[in-house]
């Protein structure tokens, strides 16, 4: 029965992916893409990768969707003006076709390469899982995924967070000079009433879920990234409904929040030279408190970064 379920799930995923690729209208494709992200979460659950499932649902089904919808709304305005003049539209479409074919070929090549790589693996695939499980006690954690993210491969996680910040710098630098340091604008002129209601009721529930995700992440699937994404979504829904305006991008508290997590991570990393074996290594007795502290700061940083990424570049002049 589980085999039948898995086959149906795979067939559905492929059909949905085909639909996304074939849909001509951007908005339609984005809606289908969000649905795809939620469905992919189901597939990761079937693969017993619950940590990945949680992240996929939160990022693929949640935040990426809003990001794409905002981008589409921005793109549509200039496109509408273009079609009124009717000139550059044709060229764009011809280029679009070439681009589509090139993208399709590149994607097919990547898929074929991945399939070859997977098929070429020796039958008991090489794994570090037993070693990782054996060393779990020294970190004080119960969830091997969190141990990999914050202890064994902490450097990767640190750099990931820095990349996230760089992405935000990239988005912010799109703002023209006169609005630099000002606030992005998110809410429509009139927010629909049900949305305002949802923005009042959902965030308290969401914050509790985020804290739960963060806390449970030490010993069970969950952790900083999922918790941070939930917090970001809750902040975004409040801003989308216009209950609170987005802060100035030059606001000092916001900047501190953004940098706090990675900075603390880096500081503890360097501290490792003096109190442990080297960069990013923790002394065993206080490994768990240290990891939890880093995770708490990272959760807030991730929440702020993701929310500001979706909010986009500054559109209002900064308040003096």
């Amino acid at each position, binding site marked *: *029965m*589980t085999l*039948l*379920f898995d086959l*149906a*799930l795979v067939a*559905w995923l492929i*059909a*949905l992916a085909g*639909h996304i690729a074939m849909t001509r209208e951007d*908005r*339609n494709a984005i*809606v*289908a893409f*969000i*649905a795809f992200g*939620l*469905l992919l*979460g*189901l597939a990761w*659950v079937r693969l*017993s990768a*619950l940590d990945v*499932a*949680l992240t996929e*649902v*939160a990022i693929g*089904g*949640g935040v990426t*969707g*809003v990001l794409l*919808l*905002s981008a589409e*709304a921005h793109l*549509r*305005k200039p496109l*509408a003006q273009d079609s009124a003049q009717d000139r550059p539209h044709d060229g764009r479409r011809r280029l679009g076709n070439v681009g589509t074919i090139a993208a399709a070929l590149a994607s097919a090549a990547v898929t074929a390469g991945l399939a070859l790589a997977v098929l070429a693996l020796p039958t008991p695939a090489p794994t570090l899982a037993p070693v990782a499980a054996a060393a779990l006690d020294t970190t004080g954690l119960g969830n091997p995924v969190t141990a990999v993210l914050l202890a064994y491969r902490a450097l990767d996680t640190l750099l990931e967070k820095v990349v996230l910040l760089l992405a935000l710098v990239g988005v912010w630098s799109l703002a023209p000079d006169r609005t630099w340091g000002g606030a992005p604008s998110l809410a*429509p002129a*009139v*927010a*629909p009433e049900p*949305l305002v209601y*949802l*923005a009042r009721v*959902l965030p308290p*529930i*969401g914050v509790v*879920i985020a804290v739960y*995700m963060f806390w*449970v992440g030490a010993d*069970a*699937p*969950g952790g900083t990234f*999922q918790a941070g994404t*939930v917090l970001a*979504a809750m902040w*975004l*829904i409040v801003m*989308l*409904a216009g209950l609170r305006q987005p802060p100035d991008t030059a606001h000092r508290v916001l900047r501190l929040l953004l940098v706090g997590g990675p900075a603390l991570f880096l500081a503890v990393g360097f501290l490792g030279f003096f109190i442990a074996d080297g960069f990013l290594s923790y002394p065993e007795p206080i490994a768990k408190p240290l990891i939890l502290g880093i995770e708490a700061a990272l959760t807030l940083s991730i929440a702020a970064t993701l929310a500001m990424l979706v909010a986009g570049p500054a559109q209002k002049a900064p308040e003096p």
Partner: protein
Amino acid sequence: MADVFTAAALAILAATAFGLFRVLRSRIAVERMMAVQLLGTGGVAALLLLGAASGVAATSDAALLLMLFAAFSCAAFTRGEEDTPDEDPQPTKEKT
């Protein structure tokens, strides 16, 4: 019992799939907003059943997050949707 749960999850998955394609191929733009709501409830039901079938308690955490983000995405749709009808340059046009 596990097989019954998986069978029910399969039935719900199939029902949701048909509904989703009906909604996504709809000519009425507003109807497509139903897609995420549909997948939210259907996916959560399937996840809960799968969790009960496999005995992995953390599966319900995934269901919790799925529901939360389905609600969030639905709210986010209104954003672009509000812009769609009035693409004219006059921003002062209010609804009657």
